[in-house]
């Protein structure tokens, strides 16, 4: 047990012109995660602090915050790894709604724009041949599963958007999690939507905006490695471009 000063960013749009800092000196248990300190303040010291959290087991993705300047999933981040003063701010690169709560509108829009669902060329009724006759499931080998599995592990905590230097300068950049998600479906052996997602990985604000900083993969609490997804998608786009130079109709037919 040690006392620490927890500094929380406060912002209420009805009262504050800009975010301010508020300090709380509280007793902290040795085993606490950073989230436990924020919850203690909310429950026992100042109920007006607003933050999001739910599962407290690093899978719902709600409790991302900046901790001493770095994006962290606070339920997975050990408090005792930090010194006497711990500075907790809302995730960077997102608009603030209130205190530690950021706005997800832009993120959700990017997320939906990659068509994150299985696309089949035919409707289900006419598409039976590729499935197990009795069970109705697709055959997918362990190797085919392995191709995309890692990119299906994203919990949408958005830490990668806070860490990304491109998102900071170019808010419309599709960003690590959304690109990794679209790429995940392109890599899934059950999916036939690569063509339909074609434009998502071309042009402005998408894979070629990435500057190879690799920050996204470093902060990812689930080892999804979105930077690898972006690089793979880029490689695919370059191959397409090269095919377009040597083959008629861009090699797409």
């Amino acid at each position, binding site marked *: 047990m040690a006392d620490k000063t927890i500094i929380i960013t406060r912002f*209420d*749009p*009805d*009262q504050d012109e800009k975010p301010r800092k508020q300090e709380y000196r509280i007793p902290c248990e040795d*085993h606490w995660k950073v989230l436990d300190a924020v919850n203690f303040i*909310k*429950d*026992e010291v*100042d*109920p*007006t602090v*607003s*933050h*999001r*959290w*739910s*599962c*407290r*087991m*690093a*899978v*719902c*993705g*709600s409790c991302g915050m900046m901790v001493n300047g770095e994006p962290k999933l606070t339920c*997975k981040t050990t408090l005792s790894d930090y010194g006497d003063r711990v500075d907790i701010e809302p995730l960077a690169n997102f608009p603030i*709604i*209130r*205190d530690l*709560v950021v706005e*997800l509108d832009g993120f*959700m829009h990017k997320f*939906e724009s990659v*068509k*994150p*669902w*299985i696309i089949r060329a035919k409707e*289900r009724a006419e598409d039976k041949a590729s*499935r*197990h006759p009795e*069970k*109705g*499931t*697709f*055959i*997918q*080998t*362990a190797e*085919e*599963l392995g191709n*995309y*599995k890692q990119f*299906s*592990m994203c*919990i*949408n905590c958005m830490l990668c958007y806070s860490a990304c230097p491109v998102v900071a300068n170019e808010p419309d950049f599709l960003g690590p999690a959304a690109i990794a*998600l679209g790429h995940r*479906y392109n890599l*899934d052996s*059950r*999916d036939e939507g690569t063509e339909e997602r074609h434009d998502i990985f071309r042009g402005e604000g998408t894979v070629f905006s990435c500057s190879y900083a690799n920050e996204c993969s470093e902060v990812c609490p689930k080892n999804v490695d979105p930077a690898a997804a972006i690089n793979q998608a880029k490689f695919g786009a370059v191959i397409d471009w090269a095919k377009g130079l040597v083959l008629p109709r861009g090699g797409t037919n």
Partner: protein
Amino acid sequence: MDVSRHDIVIVGGGAAGLRAAIEAAEKNPSASIALVSKVYPMRSHTVSAEGGAAAIAREDDNLELHGYDTVKGSDFLADQDCIQYFVEQAPKELALLENWGCPFSRNEDGTVATRAFGGMTTKRTWYATDKIGFHMLHALFQHSMRFKNIVRYDEFFVSKLLIEDGSCRGVAALDIRTGEYSTILGRAVILTTGGGGKIFPFTTNGTIKTGDGMALAYRAGVPLKDMEFVQYHPTGLPGTGILITEATRGEGGYLRNSKGERFLVEYDYGVGNKAELGPRDMISRAIVQEIEAGRGFSGAYGDYVHLDLTHLGEDKINTRLPFVRELAKVYIGVDPVTTPIPVRPVVHYMMGGIDTNIHGATEMPGLYAAGETACVSINGANRLGSNSLTECLVFGAAAANHAIDFAKGSSEGNEASLRAQAEEEAGRVENLRGRKKGGERISEIRRELNSIMENACGVYREQSTLQAGVGATAQLRGRVADLRLEDESKVFNTELITALELTNMVEVAEVLVVSAAHRKESRGAHTCKDYTTRNDQDYLYHTMARHDPAGPRLGKKDVVLGKWVPEERKY
């Protein structure tokens, strides 16, 4: 006040709600489906499920076996017509989920793999390593995005059902971001808000599990059924209550006492030769008995036993149970490859819930429920692990199917009168916001509620503590009406939301403890020290609790029996 009209309004964005939304959107593409949730759907607590989802898949399995296992697991309190429908629909529903992209683990031939689970005769639990809930939720949520007729209301808290002439015609919902109320009208409403484990101090449940849907229905006069049956999962991490999946034992893990013994061999609740694969109620009792006999370990967060995976080897743990390894390392500092994991029974699931029929319909026209918040009942007095996720799919789809048909034949409600109800509700909640004149803080009442429930409704129960719990929860109902709140802001006022949740929790808790005190027998998860045997003569019925200003009023409903005749439940 903002008023919007839809055909179907779904409250809750977890597995049951998303499945219902997809079914409704597909069945009637011209219908407008509102999906209202207090959190973004991918934050829903379905995300925390680990082990898998049950449906027959192997040559050595059949519907009869899955049905019998489930009836026996329920200690014969489940409705057998519902179980029959459930096991029949289960393989189709999981195949759909596979088609929609869920990354199920595979056999060598590329078919979906299944694993062993407690109380299940053979391997019928479909899995995705040890994160089925996460993958199911994300697959459903992402698939739902292709339907343009699903309109999401993310981070809207529903605090009242809008009712006209006895029919449910919409909800009043607080937009958490703005603090403004909305009237969201629908020709039918489906409640899919999950359970309420947070009424207990030690639970696997996330903080959002506050029994909201149950409380909404209850306050509207719809009975809650079988609320006394609360599932303790045998293996939670001491302190946090974080779930360590039953799949650890399905994959060959052992429970050991302080003498290093595989004590479950002595109890012999397992199916087949697997002593560790008994049903959850029995394994939880065995752990408590070991601890009471002095063969547990003591720790800062209570006594515990060991879950030993060390003999499985690092490869198997990494391929089948990677999340368990991560959780044990991060939250209790133990690497299961080399060291047993400390575990103890932890509140996990509510078998009871809003009374519905086989179609997910409640007794109120226009109101449906599915998933943990509902009680169909396929779980009776004890649910088998991996049946609940499948239940969300089967009955989420069934409820949507019937709600869409109901909506077609139903007239639009009177907007002015429904809006007036929502305005009245908005006024009530406005008075609560920043209510500094109140007596006690949220955290004080919640702590007391947690303590009452732990004392009254543990793995073992007895009349004296149950009766004390009845009095104490009734008293809390008065006190929660006099909360002291500090936060006057309208924008993202989580203190206000927590206050509304706490009211729901107190109501659900009171029903739970009153129902438990009434059932003077031991059946499934409801085990009484003073009534140690099952009593079919006097208690083979569902407990029905109705709202009354004086406290829950109890009634009975017949159990639907069938080909599986109640017998002694022996494994």
